[in-house]
């Protein structure tokens, strides 16, 4: 394989598979799942190997159709896009292994093949957004993955079409705002290519048109990443979507918006522009701080586990936004590291919720008790580990994200931000321990006898290996990645910092 083709491979692979699946399934229905899995595995391998290709810090460019930019569309593989695609594809792979059983359980026969095809389209969209170096192409893939997601959300239970409709309307508005931003950008600069725009903007300076463009693009990405107060679509979509969709959406979907934000703010605009000329970074930082508090507080009030995790995700996206808004090297490293860390944690948590739905028939917190733990000890253990990570206990990944973000905050003397980051650990502890307590402690109403008879009647009824293994792999990864975080940060993340930021390192 020619190395310069690397950037384009993963989106195209998924597109191709997405079209192949309905055709192949005409022959044999089962092929749908296996093709999807194979494509994701291939893409993960490619994405991981891509990281090694760009470790020296130089980017690989691919020009579609041979047309050089800024005339043609180019795809860029640099350390950031290599990292984010690896995260997306590997997590999707692990979730897909889990998905086979839940898709069989949740979806009627006729919808399974189209489901996997949509998943492929969604993955194609995600990978395209990350790899692309062209603003309009980003819009195209944004809409591809959004449309696929609307469909994926809608196939759930009775309430999911409503959730999907709301998601559709809000997502559409977001996409349109983004498009409007691209339009303004094009009108003022004449180019759609990111690298080219960087050079042009350096000369143009702060024109009103450019500022408006930035604002609209931010709105678009903000809706996509569910940054407070643009998060309205998220709770319902995560809650009512089928298990596999939630597990695919939650760890990855919002991160794409964050990635877009990082690309636009740091790789196209000059650092000074976003911090001083138009204090965009400050606005994002404060909105993120609000998101952290809002998400955590709302999560405490939820009874349905998936809904609690949804609000928790809003808070976690706030972390990423805060890291972006701090606009310093360590905040940004923290934000990108959190893309990985939160992806792992949320994927594990949503898989656990899926396991509960599969075996217990529900995922309502008020109905969870020691019964759940006795039946599914491994699943509850995975949940506990993920909960500890969300709270931020070392040496799990959650601690390290918070460390880098806190460091970024201290560097900027943002004491309020530091306080909010740390306070959120305590808030997380409140709503996660509420659930963990239910698993391991005796319920308050029942007496001794009830506890003993329950022990006698329920035996182990853990989920199958294909569902348990991904859950446990993700849980274990929380420790492994945590311990190895220094390797990740120094080996990969520090390499992607744009020159303006890299100069600020202590």
């Amino acid at each position, binding site marked *: 394989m020619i190395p310069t083709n690397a950037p384009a491979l993963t989106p195209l692979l998924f597109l191709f598979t997405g079209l192949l699946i309905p055709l192949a399934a005409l022959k044999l229905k089962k092929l749908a799942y296996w093709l999807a899995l194979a494509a994701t595995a291939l893409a993960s391998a490619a994405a991981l190997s891509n990281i090694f290709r760009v470790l020296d810090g130089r980017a690989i460019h691919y020009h579609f159709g041979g047309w050089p930019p800024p005339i043609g569309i180019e795809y860029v593989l640099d350390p950031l896009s290599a990292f984010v695609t690896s995260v997306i594809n590997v997590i999707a792979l692990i979730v897909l292994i889990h998905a086979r059983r839940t898709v069989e359980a949740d979806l009627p026969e006729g919808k399974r093949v189209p489901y996997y095809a949509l998943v492929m389209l969604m993955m194609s969209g995600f990978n395209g957004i990350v790899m692309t170096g062209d603003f309009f192409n980003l819009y195209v893939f944004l809409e591809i993955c959004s449309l696929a997601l609307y469909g994926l959300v809608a196939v759930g239970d009775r309430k999911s079409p409503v959730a999907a409709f709301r998601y559709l309307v809000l997502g559409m508005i977001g996409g349109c705002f983004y498009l409007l931003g691209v339009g303004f950008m094009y009108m003022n600069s004449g180019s759609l290519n990111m690298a080219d725009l960087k050079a042009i903007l350096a000369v143009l300076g702060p024109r009103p048109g450019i500022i408006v463009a930035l604002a609209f693009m931010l709105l678009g990405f903000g809706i996509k990443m569910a940054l407070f107060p643009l998060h309205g679509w998220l709770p319902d979509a995560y809650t009512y979507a089928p298990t596999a969709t939630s597990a695919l959406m939650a760890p990855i979907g919002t991160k794409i918006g964050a990635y877009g934000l990082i690309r636009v703010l740091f790789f196209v605009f000059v650092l000074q522009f976003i911090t001083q000329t138009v204090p965009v970074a400050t606005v994002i930082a404060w909105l993120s701080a609000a998101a952290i508090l809002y998400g955590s507080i709302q999560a405490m009030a939820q009874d349905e586990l998936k809904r609690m995790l949804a609000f928790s995700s809003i808070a976690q996206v706030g972390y990423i936004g805060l890291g972006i808004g701090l606009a310093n090297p360590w905040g940004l490293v923290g934000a990108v590291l959190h893309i990985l860390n939160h992806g792992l944690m949320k994927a594990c948590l949503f898989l656990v919720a899926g396991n509960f739905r599969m075996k217990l028939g529900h995922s309502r917190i008020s109905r969870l008790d020691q019964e759940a733990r006795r039946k599914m000890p491994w699943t509850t253990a995975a949940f506990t580990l993920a909960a500890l990570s969300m709270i931020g206990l*070392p*040496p799990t990944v959650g*601690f390290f994200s918070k*460390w880098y973000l806190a460091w970024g905050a201290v560097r900027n003397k943002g004491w309020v931000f530091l306080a909010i980051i740390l306070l959120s650990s*305590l808030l997380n502890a409140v709503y996660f321990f509420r659930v963990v307590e239910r698993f391991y*402690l005796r319920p308050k109403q029942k007496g001794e006898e009830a506890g003993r008879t329950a022990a006698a009647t329920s035996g182990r009824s853990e989920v199958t290996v294909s569902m348990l293994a991904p859950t446990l792999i993700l849980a274990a990864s929380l420790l492994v990645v945590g311990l*190895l*975080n220094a390797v990740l940060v120094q080996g990969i993340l520090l390499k992607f910092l744009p020159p303006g930021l890299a100069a600020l390192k202590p």
Partner: protein
Amino acid sequence: MNPQQVYSSLVPLWAVVVSLAAVLFILLSSRRPNLREFWTLAAGLAKFGLVLSLLPAALRGQTAAADLFEILPGVRLALRADPLGVLFALVASGLWILTSCYSIGYMRGLKEHKQTRYFAFFAVCLSATMGIAFAANLATFILFYEILTIATYPLIIHQETPEAVRAGRKYLAFTLSAGVLLVAAAVWTYQLTGGDLDFRRGGLLAGLPLAAGTAVPLFLLFLAGVGVKSSVMPLHSWLPTAMVAPTPVSALLHAVAVVKAGVFGLVRMAFFILGPELLRRFRLDTALLVLAVVTILLGSLLALRQDNLKRRLAYSTVSHLSYIVLAVGLLSGPALVAGLLHLAFHAVMKITLFFCAGALAVRLGRENVSELNGVGRVMPWTMAAFTLGAVGLCGLPPLAGFVSKWYLGAAAVAGGRPLLAGVLVLSGLLNAAYLFPIIQRAFFRRGEGLAGRKEASAWMVVPLFLTALLSLALGLYPNLFFDLAGRAAAGLFGSL
């Protein structure tokens, strides 16, 4: 400052790891209690043995160093068994063996549930304690500190009664908040030093030009971070509430591991991060002294009011821990030596008292002081041990408590603060006021409902008598700890 000789050795790492490995075996042997308990004891003996092997070098002033991988950019997960760490580790690992024996007697005596969970998490706690003792930098310290916090929780809520759950929640609320503040302090330190978090003799931050606006908040963050576990007032209220835990848990963790980790952390923060020079410059040492005095006196006064024996002992711990805070605040070599002696000696004496309290609860079902009339006749060994421990806590010779208290008082006078010595004397009187009545009731009053009762099982009585004898022995021959503490304090006070 004499440079410390550092030699590399993996023994500190094994000391931390051995009980983690035991956890696996404990979990696997949950159906065979005798085998399961064997693993705990084996791990305890192994751990103690490993720490003992570090002792000769520590007495010579050497430090065993084990550097692992990088955990943060520029900071490694690293263990250093310097004399200070070896002192703490010695106390914790040695007392774990005795507590494990005691636990076996206690848990079986009460036919407690979920014993596997108990022994497993106990082992994790001790692993974390070793990690805290040997942590070479703030990152490693925080790692093990937080693990200790979480691993203690299942032990506190062991009974799973609503009361226990509430106590556990209170404990977590206090300790997690403290942990968060400690992280804030660490991140800030990381920022100030440009990526260095090592514990350095004389203070990591010593050379930096810090203004009051930075130093004072930083100190407060560190203080709150370690102060909760050290039970400094007003951060102490989790400790009495946590007495709902089974007695061996209260004994080890709240008299030895958890709270001692707190004061140990305070010593590290004061002398290895902030540095005595900084503390003196901003009068933070005075702040420590004030807090210590308030806690010493108030703790003792509150102890007087408690009828529940374990709660009384808990407030006594709160008070005694501040002896060590006082020692830190005096900012001198002799004071620190006295403080470290008290860290070790108080642990031995307090654990005796808790063991006795547990024996009384198991054998006689009595938990309140008012119920203890005449128990001395039925459980003479237990109450004799109690007497030794109590006398030691009051600071009377020839027990260990006298030695540490004497040195602390002498250091206070030498440091130009004779009033503090007076506080110590007063505290001794208060100790007597809340401990001696118990002895008096036990031996000199007639009890009811004691017919046919006898001593607790050997699993419980032997450990508690051993610790009582140890309090006596250390009072007569404190040289080992004295030398170790001296080594620990050497070179910390450079220009003072």
